[in-house]
């Protein structure tokens, strides 16, 4: 059994095909007999042929996988067009009277050296793109058209020293059930593509290419990062079962993507996603979330020397709104406190930061900071379906004040002639017990509630879930907590407002039936929990998929 880095989940059982490393032999010499014009023409033709090949791969990946993944091939095409890359090679041929192959090899070598000196590992790995393009050019120059990876048999496990982006993109999923490589890590191109193509893979195995022979039977465990070579009958059968179960479960969950869940009255139960930054969007879309129930904005403020300005914030909000189309996006205003130090913000030393100067209290005390965020949100509102939510509201007064400042910003933007959406819902997080207990009053003024159970439970039971000595007291299903949740939902509904939940309890199997009973309108959670939550809800016969 060989171990490596688990790069792509799943199981593959098949026969080894070892991909030989690219060894393109060419023997042209620097000699006076070089016909510069001929060499230039050869190179130009090779560039054109390469562009065409990469275009075809790009189209294939775009249709079969997605636009995002196809973008890397767009960059390959740009490299082929880049006057300072391929253009430089052509000039080299003319100036130094060398053959096309040598010019390309020099190009690869030059940039390999430059890239090797880049500090950042992730960026250094991008050298793979340059090598891929260079190798393709050399192959086209040497007339080697045949691609080793085409024409594979079924149930093949490709074993290679490394797989270039082009190699991985062209793997025929109907034939290749997994791949293994000597080098690479979780962020290599091949790993990223493997996950997108959903081909199980293990990388960084060091010497898998010499540990196996063509035709060996291998079990690939892309979850544990293991490969079992020539397994015995018992192991083989065990894995066959594991694989079957895994794939059946996956298929069942996948079938739930984008399906709307209705209760017995035909009302839609929204299953939304919590995100921490625009980067989380792809997972949101992949899992078919009905919207974003919580967009935490703290990422904009953390790990930096200066306050994020309005334009920077606006850009991030805009991108998320645009990507979600017209699906609701609930953005929470700054929710930071003494437990997280910001270099540029003076925050008092508190004995009790969780009961202290944080979130909306801080924002109301520092309206100049609050307004930057609110203006950015209002400006971005025209790009999608924005809802704004204030965290840590303990009383109606705070909400009215916050809304007042929001309206000030709106008026300012109106005067400046900047367009702002007319239909922005304004709501609050219900995470402080006093808010839940006065939900009847609050519901008259807000457009919605979103219950933040993580903090609601802590404040209600007065127990810190991170404190090992008392975390056993943190019980989502504590009657007091349930009472507060029920109250919040009911008071919202009495005023014709919706109530959602963005705390962990929303995806908690034990809590979901009760929450459904209380009439919770929206469950928001980490994108990876969405499909499982849908499955849980649907196990109740009162709920069905909208046809």
């Amino acid at each position, binding site marked *: 059994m060989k171990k490596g880095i688990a790069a792509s989940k799943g199981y593959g059982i098949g026969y080894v095909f070892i991909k030989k490393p690219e060894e393109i032999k060419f023997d042209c010499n620097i000699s006076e007999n070089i016909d510069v014009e001929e060499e230039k023409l050869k190179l130009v033709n090779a560039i054109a042929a390469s562009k065409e090949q990469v275009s075809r791969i790009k189209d294939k990946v775009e249709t079969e996988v997605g636009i995002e993944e196809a973008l890397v091939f767009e960059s390959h095409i740009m490299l082929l067009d*880049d006057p300072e*890359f391929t253009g430089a090679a052509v000039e080299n041929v003319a100036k130094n009277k060398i053959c096309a192959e040598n010019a390309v090899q020099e190009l690869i070598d030059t940039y390999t050296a430059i*890239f090797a000196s880049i500090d*950042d590992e992730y*960026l250094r790995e991008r050298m793979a793109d340059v090598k891929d393009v260079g190798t393709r050019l050399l192959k086209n120059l040497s007339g080697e058209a045949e691609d080793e990876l085409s024409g594979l048999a079924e149930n093949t496990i490709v074993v290679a020293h490394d797989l270039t982006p082009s190699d991985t993109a062209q793997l025929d999923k109907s034939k290749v059930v997994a791949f293994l490589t000597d080098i690479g890590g979780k962020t290599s191109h091949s790993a990223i593509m493997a996950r997108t193509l959903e081909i199980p893979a293990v990388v960084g195995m060091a010497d898998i290419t010499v540990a196996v022979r063509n035709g060996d039977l291998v079990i690939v465990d892309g979850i544990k990062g293991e490969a079992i070579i020539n397994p015995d009958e018992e192991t083989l059968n065990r894995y066959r079962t594991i694989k079957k179960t895994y794939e059946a479960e996956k298929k069942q969950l996948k079938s739930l993507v984008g399906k709307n869940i209705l209760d017995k009255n035909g009302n839609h139960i929204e299953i939304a996603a919590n995100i921490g930054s*625009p980067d989380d969007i792809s997972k949101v879309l992949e899992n078919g979330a009905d919207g974003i129930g919580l967009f935490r904005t703290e990422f904009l403020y953390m790990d930096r020397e200066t306050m994020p300005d309005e334009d920077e914030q606006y850009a991030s909000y805009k991108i998320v709104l645009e990507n979600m189309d017209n699906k609701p996006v609930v953005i929470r205003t700054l929710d930071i406190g003494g437990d997280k130090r910001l270099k540029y913000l003076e925050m008092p030393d508190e004995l009790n930061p969780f009961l202290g100067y944080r979130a909306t209290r801080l924002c109301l005390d520092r309206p100049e900071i609050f307004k930057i965020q609110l203006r950015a949100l209002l400006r971005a509102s025209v790009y999608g379906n924005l809802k704004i939510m204030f965290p840590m509201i303990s009383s109606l007064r705070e909400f009215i004040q916050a809304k007042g400042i929001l309206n000030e910003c709106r008026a300012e933007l109106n005067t400046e002639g900047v367009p702002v959406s007319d239909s922005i819902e304004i709501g609050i997080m219900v995470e402080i017990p006093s808010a839940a207990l006065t939900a009847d009053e609050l519901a008259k003024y807000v457009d919605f509630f979103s219950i933040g159970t993580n903090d609601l439970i802590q404040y209600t039971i007065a127990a810190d879930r991170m404190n090992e000595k008392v975390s056993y007291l943190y019980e989502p299903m504590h009657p007091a907590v349930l009472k507060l949740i029920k109250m919040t939902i009911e008071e919202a509904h009495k005023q014709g407002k919706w109530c959602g939940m963005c705390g962990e309890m929303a995806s908690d199997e034990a809590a979901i039936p009760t929450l459904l009973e209380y009439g919770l309108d929206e469950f928001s959670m980490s994108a990876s929990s969405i499909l499982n939550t849908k499955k849980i809800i649907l196990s109740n016969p009162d709920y069905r998929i909208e046809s």
Partner: protein
Amino acid sequence: METQKVTIKNKTGIHARPASIFVKAASGFKSDITVNKGTSKASAKSLINILALGLAKDSELEITASGDDEKEAVQTLVDLINSKFGEE
């Protein structure tokens, strides 16, 4: 001539995807556009040279453009970098 300073905010820096977006945007302008990182320089319209600059998070750059659309060019590229190309 128009010039602006900007810092790379992307967690994974300017790898192939953002670099392509950047170069594509730059190529749409008539002006000559250069990117300076410390003592290194690259044409904003050359993908290989932008990649070779190795622009990791927190890299400080100066974007300079010279031509009819220099102001628009620099502002567009600065905005792109500040928007983190839609990544983290």
